[in-house]
């Protein structure tokens, strides 16, 4: 569990470092797609953490979900732009709601765990 968290933090740091040092600026036309993709990816990561807490973590589901969600969100934004409908809003709403839900469930798991630890400490004393 903690090794995974440290790996995630380290990877995030590495990615940010690479992103800041690569001399590549996304043209503003694509910024739209990237922003929705980032949101989708963030949602998948939170979903992964949640499922890890519920002991239901599946590597395949996590990986495919991460990439397919990001691609789907960017694709929705792309299609929306072509059709003249702001379809990326659908992605923003859907992933936004799920982000909050996942966060709430993670919070509940953490709270429950801390209660359990307190109880154990109380009992052992």
């Amino acid at each position, binding site marked *: 569990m903690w*090794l*995974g968290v440290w*790996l*995630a*933090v*380290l*990877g*995030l*740091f*590495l*990615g*940010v*470092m*690479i*992103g*800041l040092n*690569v001399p*590549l*600026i*996304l*043209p*503003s036309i694509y*910024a739209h797609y*990237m*922003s929705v*993709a*980032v949101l989708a*990816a*963030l949602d*998948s*990561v939170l979903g*992964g953490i949640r499922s890890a807490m519920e002991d239901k*973590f599946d*590597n395949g589901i*996590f*990986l495919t979900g*991460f990439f397919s969600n*990001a691609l789907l969100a960017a694709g929705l934004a792309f299609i929306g732009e072509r059709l003249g409908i702001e379809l990326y809003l659908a992605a923003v709403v859907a992933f936004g709601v799920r982000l909050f839900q996942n966060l709430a469930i993670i919070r509940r798991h953490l709270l429950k765990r801390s209660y359990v630890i307190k109880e154990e400490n109380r009992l052992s004393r």
Partner: protein
Amino acid sequence: MNKTRFLSIAVVSVVLGLMLAIQFRSTVASQNKNAGVPFDRAQELSVEMRQLEKERDALQQEAEDLTNKLNQANKGQAQALQAISSELNKVKMMAGMLPVKGTGVEIVLDNGKAGAQSPAENLFAVRDDDILKVLNELRGAGAEAISINGVRVIATSEIRLAGTFINVNLTRVLPPYRIEAIGDKDILSSSLEISGGVVEYLRSMGIKVSLEKKEQINIPAYAGRNRFDYAKPI
């Protein structure tokens, strides 16, 4: 199994970090670039400024030219003659009486279908008003001298259907019609090729249009009659 799990976590977090950083940087960059002003507006203003600067330069040059001439005229007979001849040259150039050269564009209009060549018969043939449209656009974009198949177009030139042919300066021109114009070649070509513009319209009418920017275009002098029977200076 745990190993692959950690690997996937690491990969995903690296990708996520990369995406976040790139998105962050492009957002910051786009905000800095505009500094609060919409990009289109800034571009528009800079184009306008360039135009005005060019105009100002031209006017300054003209003023200098005229004061020079005035000075020369004040100096003496010989200089006065020279000034008059240079002024005359300028007027001749304006009237199209001198062959000129310079940068510009060449537009070739050709009938869409081979065979029946006459504009009166063939639906897809180039018509006199097609050529007029191109000419109008060129003039509007600041063309300084124009010729059609080597016939100089001047202020009194006509372009009209005469029987089954198109006449310019009472001279018969035959397809393909090669229209040459001297001027700023970028402005000329872009004003013709703008979407919804003349070139697109002509192509949609089934006319073969080719447009080429050229560094050197030679346009001959007006070769026709030049007499005023009725108009007299006031």
